[in-house]
């Protein structure tokens, strides 16, 4: 409580603009842990620029997949912008790695230029770490889906081979395996080819 009161004069308003609601929630929760931050999120269906106008944040963390980032990008040049405080992309020339990693993981940060000067790098770093974790989970998920799909193909090819060649399961698998070795390809690729050839035969 005391801590919060003490820092209330320098509280930083952070707006999280993420199209992925789960990731946006996770990032907000992470940032909430810092008592000196007021964390706000852009509701779905609200344009980024409208949220910036309505909430008046000091810092905006933006998901690069948002197409409406162009509006924020243009504020400085928009002479008739309804926004009173100019906003600019946060750029750290001394830490090119940080910036490249941020763009690579799909997040960037905007500063309101007239806000109190304060290091926003920790915020950006927190966002990068979270985005990287989400990406890893997504990649793992995709890999698991691919593995599952491949297993299905192999099973299907085995069944088809057993029927066509009056073979048992072990023989069918050995045939696929041998063919994969002979042609230096993965067993799933051989299975897919076998099924495609069967389909073609059926069609003709």
């Amino acid at each position: 409580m005391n801590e919060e009161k003490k820092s209330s004069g320098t509280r930083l308003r952070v707006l999280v603009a993420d199209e992925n609601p789960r990731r946006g929630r996770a990032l907000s929760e992470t940032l909430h842990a810092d008592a000196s931050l007021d964390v706000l999120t852009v509701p779905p269906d609200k344009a980024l620029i409208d949220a910036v106008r309505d909430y008046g944040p000091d810092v905006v963390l933006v998901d690069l997949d948002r197409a409406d980032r162009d509006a924020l990008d243009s504020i400085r040049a928009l002479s008739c912008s309804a926004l009173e405080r100019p906003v600019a992309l946060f750029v750290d020339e001394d830490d090119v790695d940080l910036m490249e990693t941020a763009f690579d993981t799909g997040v960037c940060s905007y500063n309101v230029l007239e806000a109190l000067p304060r290091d926003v790098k920790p915020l950006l770093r927190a966002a990068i770490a979270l985005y990287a974790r989400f990406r890893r989970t997504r990649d793992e998920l995709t890999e698991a889906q691919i593995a599952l799909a491949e297993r299905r193909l192999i099973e299907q090819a085995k069944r088809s081979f057993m029927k066509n060649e009056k073979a048992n399961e072990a023989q069918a698998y050995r045939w696929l395996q041998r063919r994969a070795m002979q042609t230096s390809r993965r067993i799933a690729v051989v299975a897919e080819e076998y099924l495609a050839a069967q389909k073609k035969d059926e069609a003709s």
Partner: protein
Amino acid sequence: MNAPLRIGVLKLADSAPVIMAQQKRIFARHGLETEIVVSPSWANIADGLAWNRLDAAVIFAPLAMMTALGHRGHGAELRPLARISRGGNTIMLRGINPASGVWQAGSRGRNAFDIWRNAIGRKPRIAIVHMYSTHLLILRRFLKMIDVDMENEVTLSVMPPADMIHALAENAIDGGCVGPPWGTEAEQLGLAFQVGGSATVLPGHLEKVLVASGKLLACEQKVSRMSLAVQEALSFCQKPTHREEITQALAAPVADGGLLLPPASTRTILPGGEARECVTFSDGNLLPSDLDWIISDMTALGWIGEVEQQMLKRWSGPIPAASSPV
């Protein structure tokens, strides 16, 4: 070491040469391994070029110039490799056109604007896709042509082209200046009428260029291969006989190498199409006259100064030798 060259594009019909070069393996035939990155925003394209996430991009010249000059916060070594397109932008308004067809210059256009503004009953809200766009320059010239002051008589906003369709339908905006095929799409959906555009304001003006980042520019062989591949793709795309094939390619889902563009409007704005405002894919060197009007308008808007003007004038002419300064 041999990662594919990443080329950024947006979902617009004037990305066609790069899409076709990829799909018809023109890049591959020229010995280039390439990957097309379909970006959701122009800011992503500019940041991608500035922070080494893209090796090249199809982009409008003003944004490429402002990015190269460091006006977005981080300077980037950029040079145009090729001109991609001329024209194709449309100025669309919602409601009923008080004139027939596009608006005339001078008092007749002004008169049409006044009747239209009274009908919509508020200070018109006009959208563009990015502040540093040819669309803003074309819109500004159009409004000047009909004696309307852009600074005071309209409110500008920035939004992605596909969002403009929704915004027009919901009366959130009253018009926009937008690239192909989105203006024609709005017209075909009955959401807006066309009052002007590239052909009315500045026929054959430079629209998109293919810009290369410093990393790509450092490799002379790749630069020359890419230039040759793009010239070949430009000639392919300019042939009216290829219109249907290009329409289908652009309408395909992004996962299949397309841009998911609406086929009916795309078909009408490609070379040989029947739209008032067609895009022209234009090969050959970037000419001083391609850039002069852009540099002069950017100066008038206070975006660039004298020294920067001189730097940008060096963007025309043959493809630069490797590692020449911006």
